[in-house]
């Protein structure tokens, strides 16, 4: 059987792993390649590297970093952050990334999703959505959570999948950094209404939060950063817990 996936996320700024709380207050958390290789060894199912400097500052070294990761890590990984063109994606995939995630650029130019899926296949195109609950529904935010839109997350996710997104990486800004659990409602809504995998992100604090997002929200994968980086939770312990709960997990 296909397993649920545990995905550590490494936010990269100037070549280092960092983690913000509620999208702000960035702290240093170590060398991304060392960390990535360690997680792979511990049983992480995939890795996500998000270059959070990308939207605001120019970056030339991301492709080189991707190649260094690909050399050392023997599990699949996704790269995201400021990707806005077929050319960007081509460079990253050719550097050794297995998938790329697009966010703001795809929202501003949805046709990009059609182009990317036609050129590279849906399986390597992840649509990342930052979402916040307010006024009774979940809305899409852009530019790393700084810019609000009036588009509902469920609508954008559906359109994106129709255009060729192969997976949805959904980050709840309300939950991110709080360690109070994943956003089960919107994760569940997307998971049930879309025919592509949904990766839940934001809010992981305890092992029970992971079993909840798999069992109650039907997420296909769960992503977390700080609890792994600061060793508040070890991946083997988490997998052991989920296995005992009867959740399909890879050992």
């Amino acid at each position, binding site marked *: *059987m*296909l*397993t649920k*996936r545990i995905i550590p996320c490494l936010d990269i700024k100037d070549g280092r792993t960092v983690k913000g709380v509620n999208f702000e207050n960035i702290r240093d958390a170590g060398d991304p390649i060392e960390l990535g290789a360690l997680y*792979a060894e511990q049983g992480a*199912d995939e890795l996500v590297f998000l270059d959070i400097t990308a939207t605001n500052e120019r970056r030339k070294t991301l492709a080189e970093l991707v*190649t260094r990761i*690909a*050399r050392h890590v*023997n*599990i*699949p990984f996704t790269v995201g952050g400021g990707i806005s063109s077929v050319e960007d994606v081509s460079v990253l995939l*050719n*550097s*050794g990334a*297995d998938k790329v995630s697009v966010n703001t650029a795809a929202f501003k130019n949805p046709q990009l999703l059609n182009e990317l899926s036609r050129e*590279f*296949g*849906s*399986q*390597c195109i992840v649509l990342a959505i930052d979402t916040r609950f307010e006024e009774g529904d979940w809305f899409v935010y852009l530019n790393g959570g700084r810019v609000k839109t009036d588009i509902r997350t469920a609508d954008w996710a559906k359109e994106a999948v129709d255009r060729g997104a*192969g*997976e949805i990486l959904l980050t709840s800004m309300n939950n991110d950094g709080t360690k109070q659990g994943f956003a089960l409602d919107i994760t569940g809504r997307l998971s*049930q*209404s*879309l*025919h*592509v*995998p949904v990766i839940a992100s934001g809010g992981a604090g305890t092992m029970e939060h992971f079993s909840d997002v798999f069992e109650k929200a039907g997420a*296909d*994968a769960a992503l977390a950063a700080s609890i792994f980086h600061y060793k508040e939770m070890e991946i083997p312990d988490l997998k052991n817990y989920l296995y005992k709960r009867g959740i399909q997990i*890879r*050992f």
Partner: protein
Amino acid sequence: MKTAIIKYNAGNTRSVLFALERLGVEATVTDDPEELKSADKVIFPGVGEASTAMAYLRERKLDTLIKDLKQPVLGICLGMQLLCKHSEENDTDCIGVFDLDVKKFQSPVENLLKIPQIGWNNITGLHSVIFEHVGQNDYMYFVHSYFAELGPETTAIANYVINYSAALQKDNFYAVQFHPEKSAQSGQNIIESFLRL
């Protein structure tokens, strides 16, 4: 030992190259017929769409060249599907080493089955020398919307609502639907076993 990776328009060659590099093996990526024919091992990787890939291979007569290879050949993912007879993906006639059809996953109930299948699935019924150092039920990383049906050449089975071929073998042709180059230690062991053939 000379290891060649077939260069064409649907390769995930970089990942395969890096996996070989981690095993201390240097490989060449080439579409040169002589180089491919003279290699000790040939790897046929692939991520992409079947009809475009076959058109590209036919144009360069690589389809017949691949079929006539005598050394051990390892097809990966789309590479495995292209070694089959026919793919439902844009109704494509393939190379035909394996007498099998490639079909698209169908969800029995809407949205129950996520397509493509992305993630780790276990493989069972293993009987090929390339699985010598892999355990029954070991997990491999799969990314695909199309699958090869079961047949006499099936050497590993995976299940995604239905049972299908996770691996095939016929004579010198070995093929896996999953990505050994991305399947952690288990995948690495498969590549190593193939290189030792």
